[in-house]
């Protein structure tokens, strides 16, 4: 009984720790006064300001564009690469997988500056393209890592069974292999999309020419101090995340699938 109570109190404290900062932001996004200490009455003006802020809107656009493109590209490359890797000999497979792990294991800042040195060395102007490439670079490993287990779980004769029943290798891939590993592909794509949306460090070093994303713009605003329109942005993002997660949770009812 006592144990139960302690557990409840402990979890409440943890959740308080997790949510208090966010809730403070939410509350103050409706605060008339610009100061965070005083309640100056309810307002939506920060939301209006947010939507008038062309930099933020542009950053939002780039964030989603890069997330969408990079997750699609990396899902396609990653899926086919995973199938290839799965069919390689032990040595080739191990070598590629170890290199594949580098962007996962290396600190983001190292991956970020390393890519930046590459782009600058080949005189590629930092901007949209370099940001997109850098996102694809760090997304593919996650797609491969989520597709490979599905390939391993698959009956090793699955492709042969399709060929045996008259399918050409292309049809076997399209009708059997891809559908069989689809859950892994979707997990990989979602992972790539979220990682891309949330990325700051790698984008920070690999963009320029006025192309930014949400994280970069929040960083530069926050460096200059607190701005109430960021509070409004946080509130909107919180609502989006909660709705999305509840939808996903309803569909899978499996919490384990929600790993970032």
């Amino acid at each position: 009984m006592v144990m139960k109570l302690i557990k409840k109190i402990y979890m409440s404290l943890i959740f308080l720790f997790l949510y208090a900062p966010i809730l403070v932001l939410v509350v103050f996004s409706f605060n008339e006064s610009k100061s965070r200490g005083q309640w100056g009455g309810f307002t939506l003006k920060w939301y209006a300001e947010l939507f008038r802020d062309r930099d933020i809107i542009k950053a939002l656009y780039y964030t989603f564009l890069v997330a969408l493109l990079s997750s699609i590209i990396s899902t396609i490359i990653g899926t086919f690469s995973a199938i290839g890797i799965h069919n390689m000999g032990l040595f080739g497979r191990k070598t590629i997988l170890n290199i594949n792990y580098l962007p996962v294991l290396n600190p983001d800042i190292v991956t970020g500056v390393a890519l930046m040195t590459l782009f600058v060395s080949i005189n590629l102007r930092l901007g949209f393209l370099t940001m997109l490439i850098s996102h694809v670079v760090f997304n593919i490993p996650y797609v491969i890592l989520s597709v490979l287990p599905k390939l391993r779980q698959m009956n090793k004769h699955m492709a042969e069974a399709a060929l045996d029943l008259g399918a050409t290798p292309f049809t076997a891939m399209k009708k059997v292999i891809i559908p069989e590993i689809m859950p892994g592909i979707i997990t990989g794509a979602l992972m790539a999309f979220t990682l891309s949306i949330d990325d700051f460090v790698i984008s920070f070093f690999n963009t320029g020419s006025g192309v930014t994303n949400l994280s970069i713009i929040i960083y530069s605003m926050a460096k200059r101090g607190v701005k109430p329109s960021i509070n409004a942005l946080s509130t909107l993002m919180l609502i989006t995340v909660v709705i999305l997660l509840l939808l996903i949770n309803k569909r899978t009812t499996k919490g384990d699938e929600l790993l970032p």
Partner: protein
Amino acid sequence: MKNKAKLLAYPYVVWIAIFIIVPLVLVLVYSFTEGNIHNPSSLTFSLKSYDKFFNILYLNILWKSFKLAFISTFLCLILGYPVALIISKAKAKYKGILLLFFLVPIWMNFLLRTYAWMAILSPNGFINRLLQLIGLPTLAIMPGQTAVVIGMVYNFLPFMVLPIYTVLSKIDKNVLEAAMDLGANKIITFIKVIFPLTVPGIISGITMVFMPAVSTFVISQLLGGGKELLIGNLIEQQFTVQRDWHFGSALSIILMIMILISMAFMSKADKDDEGGAALW
């Protein structure tokens, strides 16, 4: 058949060569050279950048980065293990929702999460206003190391909880019953059976928290107010402000090596070393 399917991996071999191997090689090359990076022929071998690093100023920054990352990782473990344990023992119908609500914050933008703590901890932030309101003296947490540690724990706690939770939820119930059957009470079962079984989860949790913590420059910039420079800030400055790419590259190599050493150290503690595979 098999031989043809493996051809699908070859484009990616080229890809990783260009975008993973070459950049790291470039960083390594720049760290050991001096000269104009835009003019490759002007580059000459030099240990200047490493020499520059062995200075009490920079060594202190490296030391501080590891110290704060270590403290944060330790706090995440202490705070996170019970959370993982409680969620894994929760009734099936609550488990999903508990985990979900635990995960909501990490689905928020990382910068926003850090920014949220700025709003709370800054000198005229939420906490100090609250303290003033009830007539207490204000605290000077931010900018400062405490604020940086809070920011790290807040941001990376889920990375500690998830791997431990995953391992805990995979423990075969029969194993626990066997332990009870053999006369172990709950505490002994925990110490002798559950805890050892979760060591791989703890190891990957530690890695997943320590790595981003030791290399961060955002948290230290925003919550340290630019005063608490960490190795990440130092690298960032070399590449953006100082434009000393040679020194920046040397710092990156040093950071990588230090992390490699600490990871090797940790995986030694993990008996069945699965390498990176344990991460996910």
